[in-house]
């Protein structure tokens, strides 16, 4: 069980049109998330770090269904949930057609049987339906509405700003019990007990004194605790946490961080922890992925990446983080220029313009793939992986 994958993202892309045209096709796209792959195991957390505009929040939004993916596959607990993330059924249908039916039709029975993982599960189903594409699609989309609901129980989100993510007209009880209402779980009495229990476990004790108050009566830290309670009341498998502590003061922040870690343990849950703060990421994650302009440039175990950064961007980012110790001097971040706009980026390493080590090879080739340089430590850089020689 411990090695079970909760979330697997393969080749996720999200493009936004950069201009609106009436009569012709859009030519310019903002490549917010461009071909990223992530795996999160149960009880493990991944920190997605990067500067503003690197696509980390967009990734989170796609996962909870607030944005449609342009491309890529998202698997939650061995189930391909991508068709559930599309707003309308025809896009979902097209996705299945392209990703499964077309691919499977080209293979013979023997090949289909050798597929493993999620592909294997669907290949088996495909064979069972005697390779009937239409039947496969309709079975895939069976009860789509219901399954979208079920997905939302499993994937929850905690937002950055606790002052804006709670409805000011609702009481704390209404806010925390709303997911239970929507999913029609329990009767009023049971809901009350559940909410009280949840509030107590996020440190809002005694719960009775908080239940019928309004958000404006609470402080920032308490509000964020309410937001956490709301996200966890449905027992999700994983939670997308988008900078949940960046608005909180230092003395309160640690409490919320520790609370989130404890709850992850108690509820067997994983976080996708989105943050710009590398120091916070160090405390909140097992693994880390550093994003730059829609690409993951380096990923690996958090402590390993922070102590031994390999990608020039990660190095610069780490060198720029101020150290809370006046006696420690840090290095000079070795980086040129500023972040370019990710609109139709040229086919070369995204970091080329700013990289102090860039060579001709980096310009002539497409953005490098992630290569495992050290155990579990992957880097997308031709210079580091030694391909330039």
């Amino acid at each position: 069980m411990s090695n079970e994958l909760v979330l697997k993202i393969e080749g996720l892309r999200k493009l936004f049109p950069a201009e609106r045209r009436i009569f012709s096709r859009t030519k310019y796209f903002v490549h917010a998330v461009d071909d990223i792959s992530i795996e999160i195991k149960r009880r493990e957390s991944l920190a997605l770090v990067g500067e503003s505009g690197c696509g980390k929040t967009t990734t989170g939004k796609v996962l909870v269904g607030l944005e449609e993916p342009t491309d890529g596959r998202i698997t939650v607990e061995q189930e391909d949930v991508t068709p559930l993330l599309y707003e309308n059924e025809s896009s979902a249908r097209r996705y299945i057609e392209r990703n499964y039916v077309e691919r499977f039709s080209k293979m013979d029975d023997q090949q289909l049987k050798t597929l493993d993982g999620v592909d294997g599960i669907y290949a088996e189903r495909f064979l069972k339906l005697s390779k009937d594409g239409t039947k496969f699609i309709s079975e895939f989309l069976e009860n789509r509405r219901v399954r979208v609901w079920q997905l939302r129980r499993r994937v929850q989100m905690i937002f950055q700003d606790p002052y804006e993510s709670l409805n000011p007209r609702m009481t704390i009880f209404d806010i925390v019990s709303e997911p239970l209402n929507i999913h029609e779980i329990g009767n009023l009495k049971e809901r009350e007990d559940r909410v009280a229990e949840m509030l107590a476990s996020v440190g809002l004790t005694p719960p009775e004194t908080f239940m019928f108050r309004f958000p404006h009566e609470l402080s920032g830290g308490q509000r964020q605790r309410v937001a956490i309670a709301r996200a966890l009341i449905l027992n999700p498998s994983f939670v997308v946490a988008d900078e949940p502590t960046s608005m909180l003061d230092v003395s309160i922040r640690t409490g919320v961080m520790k609370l989130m870690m404890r709850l992850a343990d108690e509820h067997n849950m994983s976080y996708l922890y989105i943050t710009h703060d590398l120091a916070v990421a160090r405390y909140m994650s097992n693994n880390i992925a550093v994003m730059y302009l829609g690409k993951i440039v380096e990923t690996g175990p958090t402590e390993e990446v922070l102590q031994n950064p390999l990608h020039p961007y990660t190095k610069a980012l780490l060198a720029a983080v101020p150290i809370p110790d006046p006696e420690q001097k840090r290095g000079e971040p070795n980086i040129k220029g500023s972040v370019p706009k990710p609109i139709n980026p040229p086919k070369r390493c995204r970091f080329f313009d700013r990289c102090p080590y860039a060579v001709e090879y980096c310009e002539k080739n497409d953005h490098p793939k992630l290569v495992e340089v050290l155990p579990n430590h992957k880097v997308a850089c031709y210079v580091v992986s030694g391909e330039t020689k």
Partner: protein
Amino acid sequence: MLLSVKDLKMHYKTKMGYVKAVDGINFDLDSGESLGIVGESGCGKTSISMTILRLLPDNAEFKAGSVFFDMGNGPIDLVKLDESQMRKYRWRGISMIFQAAMNSLNPVYKVGDQIIEAIQNHFPETPVDKAREKVAELFHLVGLDPSRMDQYPHQYSGGMKQRAVIAMALACDPKVIIADEPTTALDVIVQDRILKEIRKIQKKLNMAMIYISHDIAVIAEVSDRIAVMYAGKFAELADSVTIFKKPMHPYTYGLMHAFPSTVGEKTDLVTIPGEPPNLLNPPKGCRFAPRCPKADQTCINEEPQYIEIEKGHFVSCHHPVKPGEVVQFYEQ
């Protein structure tokens, strides 16, 4: 002494009573020196700078204290000046880099013209071409291309706007610059460049700086001395190494151990229980007492004096933390 603040008190009048935002602040500042004021949101750190510059909203009530400022012809109490006299000291004596600098530029005027306006406001006799020369010089100083003078703020990136605002603060050759959260909205790489730029300029012009921030790490990098503010008062003030290595106030101690770092050993972070007090009616005794593990009856009843325990090390605490002592903060 360039700037000397004595027992400064300023309260905001609200329907529910007085919010004691600045409640007895004392500090001195020499030229060329930089003082960092660190504190959590709502502790009154921005209000201090607004009180010094007398840029207060209508509901603010100045209660007591004095701000002695020396421009080279003896100390003058800024508090006693009337508005027209005060104008001579603003920007020329003490200028300010405002919080959310990206929004403090006017979007419909060219950036260069806004700085020229600041110069001509304080030195009306300056001809435009002289002022333009000065702006070009300032742009150069803060690392902006002078040809961007005639562009509008929206054509600038976040870091560039920040640089422009710094150039504006420098426009009238001030003796003191108050930088209120100068890099809060910026990404770390840009923040690093801006902070280095400010320090370089400070050294070059031998200015005094007051940095205000909630980020201890930023304050640690730029300040010679650090004041830790809590609920309208200074809890502790000392040189930056002492604050980090030998904090005496339990609040400072807690903050230092609550702040995560990317370097060094991954230590267990401290949680300070509770919340900062409401400044409408702060606790009677020590304001930190309800959250302090060392607090006893004295702390609850009596307000501690802000005293100089060692040379240059001010603390207001009945039971200061001894060197090497481990303070256990209990979890909620």
